[in-house]
């Protein structure tokens, strides 16, 4: 009997390799580093992510020469290398780098000498990349679980703190619950089409097989699973609790990273594999988009804890992204990609500010803690103001350009109602974003925090890395606001492979 070895194209795995190797290396290196030198682990993980980013940039041109093939498939069509995957590799690499930078200062106070934190971040970036590149529903599921398992652990990283425990438990229970639905959806689609590979599902449907009920139910269950992961209403209940209780640096990572990865897979599954069903789903997603935007923004209005406010704001932003998903078309999807980059920069930037202004052990988590910050830490407060302008969609910031593209895609796709509701929601959101700025600049500090100007040593030297993250994000936010064309062009190139 002859053993047939499958032909494997390793190219799709090349940009993933440094992240996987980096995760294992940091985990091992952490064992041998003496306490107090654990920040070397962070530097090692930054190198791994930088390598992944460079390899992705490197693959963009030569591997995917437009004259030759645009797409390459790894092991049995299960992992896809196209510009869409590469775009998300780059975005997720950037999110990983910023997360590690803003974690360094935070961890110094919260959990010193626990270098395994960085390995968990790398593993979860790996899972997110795999999910974005998955060409098989099972690979998407495995990517989802890889990053979710790492995130459950990260959410509970402050072991002695009850809030962190509770956040991890809630995330785990609801995440696993959602995974069950997701997996059941995959099983039903497998039953209806005989395969879980997206390309073959597309071919099966294009072959003239009408979508049978089994298939439609499977698609609906997948939608529920994705709805949980992107925290869209009515599957959003976990998000505020989890985001509030998790360590602040992890909250930032979850807000930016899970959304990017889940949307990447969402787009690939619903637009690549199930384009025939776009009309059927778009009605359901229309409703989800409106609910998600409205509930997210209205509840964010009354929050007094800044992490909770960001949780509801992230729900609202998922709604804007769903608007673009309904609009569809290459401009709609390109606007999602653009918005995800802008969204990652402004959220990670804002969280880097929250971490950079913490006072030793004490974090400033209530909105009232920000009173007078504009005069105590003028540069960081100014950066926070930029992020708030960007989140509420005021020019000249990345958030404004992103919303502009999304709502114009909705108009072009003939969904004027959605565009109007979206713009109204943006107006509501201005209230709670600008409130942060008002508090920072226009109210006196109620209980004066230890004043640094009186010659006291700065409490957190390690927050230099967080300040670096703030600067990168603020420059990125302004750059995308002023010169969006380059990134939009990249986004358009990326979606050309899946949306013609």
């Amino acid at each position, binding site marked *: 009997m002859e053993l047939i070895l499958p032909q494997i194209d390793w190219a799709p795995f090349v940009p993933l390799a440094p992240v996987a190797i980096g995760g294992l290396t940091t985990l091992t290196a952490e064992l041998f580093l003496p306490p107090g030198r654990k920040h070397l682990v962070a530097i090692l993980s930054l190198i791994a992510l930088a390598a992944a980013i460079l390899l992705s940039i490197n693959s963009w041109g030569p591997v995917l020469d437009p004259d030759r093939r645009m797409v390459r498939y790894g092991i049995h069509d299960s992992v896809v290398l196209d510009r869409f995957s590469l775009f998300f590799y780059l975005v997720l690499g950037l999110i990983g780098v910023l997360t590690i930078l803003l974690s360094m200062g935070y961890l110094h106070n919260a959990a010193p000498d626990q270098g395994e934190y960085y390995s968990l971040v790398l593993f979860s970036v790996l899972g997110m990349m795999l999910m974005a590149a998955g060409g098989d529903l*099972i690979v998407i*599921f*495995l990517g989802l*679980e890889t990053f979710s*398992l790492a995130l*459950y*652990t990260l959410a*509970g990283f402050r*072991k*002695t*703190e*009850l*809030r962190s*425990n*509770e*956040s*991890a*438990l*809630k995330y*785990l*229970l609801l995440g*696993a*619950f959602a*995974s*069950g639905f997701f*997996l*059941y959806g*995959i*099983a*039903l689609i*497998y*039953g209806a089409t*005989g*395969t*879980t590979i997206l390309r073959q599902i597309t071919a099966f449907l294009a072959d003239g097989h009408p979508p049978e009920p089994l298939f439609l139910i499977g698609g609906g269950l997948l939608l529920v699973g994705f709805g949980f992961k992107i925290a869209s209403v009515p599957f959003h209940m976990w998000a*505020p*609790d989890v985001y*509030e*209780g998790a360590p602040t640096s992890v909250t930032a990572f979850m807000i930016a990273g899970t959304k990017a990865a889940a949307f990447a897979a969402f787009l690939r599954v619903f637009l690549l594999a199930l384009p025939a069903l776009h009309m059927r789903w778009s009605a359901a997603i229309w409703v989800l988009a409106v609910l998600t935007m409205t509930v997210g923004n209205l509840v964010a209005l009354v*929050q007094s*804890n800044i992490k*909770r406010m960001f949780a509801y704001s992230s729900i609202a932003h998922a709604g804007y992204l769903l608007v673009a998903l309904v609009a569809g078309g290459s401009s709609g999807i390109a606007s999602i990609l653009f918005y995800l980059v802008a969204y990652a920069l402004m959220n990670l930037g804002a969280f880097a500010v929250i971490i950079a202004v913490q006072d030793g052990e004490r974090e400033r988590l209530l909105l009232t803690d920000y009173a007078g910050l504009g005069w105590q830490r003028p540069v960081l407060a100014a950066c926070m103001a930029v992020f708030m302008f960007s989140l509420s969609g005021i020019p000249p910031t990345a958030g404004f350009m992103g919303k502009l593209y999304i709502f114009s895609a909705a108009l072009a796709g003939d969904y004027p109602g959605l565009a109007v509701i979206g713009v109204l929601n943006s107006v509501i959101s201005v209230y709670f974003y600008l409130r942060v700025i008002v508090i920072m600049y226009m109210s006196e500090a109620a209980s004066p925090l230890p004043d640094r100007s009186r010659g006291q040593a700065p409490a957190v030297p390690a927050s230099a890395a967080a300040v670096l993250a703030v600067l990168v994000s603020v420059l990125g936010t302004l750059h995308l606001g002023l010169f969006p064309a380059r990134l939009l062009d990249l986004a358009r190139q990326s979606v050309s492979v899946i949306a013609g």
Partner: protein
Amino acid sequence: MTATVPLNAYLILSAALFVIGVAGVLIRRNVLVIFMAIELMLNAVNLTFVAFARFLHSMDGQIIVLFVMAVAAAEVAIGLAIIIALHRNKESMNVDEINLLKG
């Protein structure tokens, strides 16, 4: 050749198990029982995969089940670790009493 059980029987059984799992997650208040209910949901899905694999004569479904079992095992390991960490700080297994975060 023995008489075969029709595909529908498997599908109905696994759907019933899945629904029992969902109901368990929604109704029961003990963290460990909720956890078991989630495992029941995953195993219901496994049954669906195996049944389809048998009737479609494809191996994919059977292999997927191995992946799912590995994922479920990892989930249990992490879940129990989190529950123990929580139990050290708060002597309760009832989700209604784990309510520090709300609003």
